[in-house]
């Protein structure tokens, strides 16, 4: 059922290519993320069997059809708990979540601060096009105030959310922003996010060619944090950068080390739950409680 028109020139890391033609609109920012991800996975030397992609519902969710890996295309907004369950069941898997700004910041926002503070070793990549793409262009929590969309014909009445600031305030140990228009840079960010042990949050500006095409504007305003000597260990500096409005910084905002969540379950990890064949369990010790 792939009747889409392929957009952009793409050099794929073939190992991670399902060979399916993406059905995104021509010029869609999702292409850039797809390419950057495949390359990052290849560069990390991973095998498709070791990787699990969890994708939400939205245009971004189609990633699971195009990346050769284990995939779980979940319901709207639940990428993080799904990914958490997978990672805890089998920590040897590399678990990457792909969510949208609607998926992650509207319906799914309740999970983000918890994943962050738990420091579950999962990478969350938010395809942030500032619009509900798949449902044909309503406002999301990152849509700029005043913007006319299908659900806000008189202008979006809501102040947008600042996802990076929120992630920082939630205790995320890796916080970054990428731009789908800069694939090489994004690839690098994804590599770092996956390598980071603990929760990695990566918001990617992903212009929606059809409902909110801001390529030109983003290109004009974007700059790289690393070009200006940003200290990724400083929470304060990260917050300051996240509050910038005129220019748009991309790169790693913040990075710190904390034990990942799974370290709370050493008693359950040899083998981990996902790798156990169910066996008869001796409960005699427990029955003595009930006499």
């Amino acid at each position, binding site marked *: *059922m792939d009747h889409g028109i392929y957009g952009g020139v793409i050099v794929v890391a073939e190992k991670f290519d*399902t060979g*399916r033609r993406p059905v995104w609109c021509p010029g869609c920012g999702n292409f850039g993320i797809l390419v950057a991800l495949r390359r990052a996975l290849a560069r990390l030397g991973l095998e*498709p*069997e*070791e990787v*699990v992609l*969890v994708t939400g*519902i939205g245009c971004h969710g189609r990633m*699971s*059809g195009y990346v*050769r*890996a*284990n*995939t*779980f*295309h*979940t*319901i709207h907004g*639940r990428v*993080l*708990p*799904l*990914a*958490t*369950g*997978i*990672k*805890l*069941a*089998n920590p*040897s*898997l590399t678990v990457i979540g792909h969510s949208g700004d609607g998926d992650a910041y509207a319906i799914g926002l*309740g*999970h983000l601060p*918890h994943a962050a503070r738990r420091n579950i070793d999962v990478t969350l990549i938010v395809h942030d096009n500032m619009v509900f793409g798949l449902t044909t262009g309503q406002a999301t929590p990152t849509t700029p105030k005043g913007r006319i969309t299908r659900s806000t014909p008189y202008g979006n009445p809501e102040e947008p959310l600042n996802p990076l600031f929120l992630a920082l305030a939630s205790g995320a140990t890796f916080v970054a922003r990428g731009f789908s228009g800069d694939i090489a840079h994004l690839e690098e960010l994804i590599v770092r996010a996956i390598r980071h042990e603990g929760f990695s949050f990566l918001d990617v500006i992903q212009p929606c060619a059809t409902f909110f095409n801001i390529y030109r504007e983003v290109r004009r305003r974007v700059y790289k944090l690393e070009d200006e000597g940003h200290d990724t260990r400083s929470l304060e500096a990260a917050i300051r950068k996240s509050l910038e409005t005129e220019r748009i910084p991309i790169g790693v905002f913040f990075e710190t080390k904390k034990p990942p969540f799974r370290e709370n*379950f050493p*008693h*359950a990890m040899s083998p*981990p*739950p*996902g*790798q*156990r*064949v*169910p*066996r*008869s*369990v*001796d*409960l005699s*010790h*427990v*029955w003595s*409680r*009930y*006499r």
Partner: protein
Amino acid sequence: MSGREEFTFLVGGPAGAGVFRSGLVAAKTLFRHGYYVHGDNEYPSIIRGGHQWMMVKAAKREVYAHGEEVDAVLALDKETVARHRGRVREVIVADESVARGLEGVVAAPLMRSVREVGAPSVAVNMAGLGFVLGLYRGDVGRLEAVIRDVFSKKREVAEVNARVARRAYEYAAEAAGELALEPLSIGEPPRGKIVIDGNSAVALGALAGGLSFYAAYPMTPASPILHLLAELQKEYGLVVVQPESEIAAINMVTGAAYAGARAMTATSGGGFSLMTEALGQAAMTETPVVIVEAMRAGPSTGLPTYTSQADLRFVIHASQGEFPRFVLAPGDPYEAYMAGFDALNLAWKYQVPVIVLTDKYLAEGYWTVDEPPRLEPSEGKVIRGEYRGEEPYKRYKITPDGVSPMAIPGTKGALVTANSSEHGEDGYGSTDPEVVTAMQDKRFRKLSGMIEEANGKGVKTYGGGPLAVVTWGSTKNAVLEATRDMYGVRVVQVLYLSPFPSERLSRELEGADRVLVVEANKTGQLASLLREHLLLEPDGFLGKYDGRPFTPEEVEEWITGFMEG
């Protein structure tokens, strides 16, 4: 082993006074005297101060449910006396300070015992137990042993409490002589039996079924499952997580199951409401998940600490679209253990969601049941390690029985593609009408095996006779107690509510000239299933929806009406 055949005891007091703990100690003590026991409690959703009670019935034969009367009451406050006076057959015991000015209450030196031993005043409940045991000439050594077991984590506290109990026991000697109550018998605990609550039983059944991942958000009356499994996590190598919500819980469970773990969650109706979307996801992705739904009285927040059987239709039909699911409804802790075990096995055998439907009465009530056997979980059609098939691995391969071999992510040579959207055999999204129809048919093809399971294990009949009383879940207890001495009555318990065991149930109802239905709801949900699936209009329906379990008396009276008629 002479002594009384039966003994019913109630301890009541304000929340926070250790009422349940005393009740549990009483139950175990009676069990160790050689009785079958059943315990049930009632409490408002308040941490301190609201009136609570726990009732324990002991008998030399199996005990299913409480009657309305009790032999002895231990009143930890005046309110207990006021509330329960009417149902007492033999004696009410209270501390002197409580009993003052109350007629017909034995003023016991409970606080005095506490003080003499130098115990904190909360120990007064153990003094009460000691005193009552003294009145009935039980074995105080067994009481002390139970106290030591129950307080096992705090050795000193245990010792002090045991001493308080013994002191009060000794004080009771005089009153015992005066009152001359029929003494307890002192024998050995019923062989091969345990005293267990439904929550523990379902949790342990799941453990027996290979549970390795548990995530749940606290909700009365299911929270004790979380507490128990959290405690056992180290011994049994479990991952136990308390996530931010029920939505997170069910999705974590789904993720874990997808990744190969036997996973479960538990909640009550409100939390289950929040899980309905992900229930459909589990069905569509064919991920084996198990949800325990411990019903409480609704609608909405309702009566958080009271019982009900009003969520049956809801769990059978929850979530958009159509898909097969199991709904298992155990009626006692032994069945709860089996249901916990079966739930995981069935979920993995058929790759469908399984709901274990319990209720507050079963979940928090204690019964004496056989110690469950050690069981062998089976893996189902699971591929681990390496996939060596000829063709590329397809997660949703169409098979004759509808079940596709399920590879676990990490398996060499297989990529596992789960999809909540409709999809083809390879898991990739499809809207092709033929594919869509084929995949629905595939999922429903599991139904024939599932129906067989339901017809196999889904109905139990007790006794025989032309009058059939059909019931389900914990209500079977009051019905069994009520019909114990009735002639010509068969009790038919439905344990599998989905898929509905129509064939088996019809068989069990053969020859019945009248069919009655008893269940703890208002509209008659099992009754509606009889109409829907058997085209059978029951001749009578007894419902109850005040949050309290049925008493055998009210069931008996109602059934008797049909026998005379």
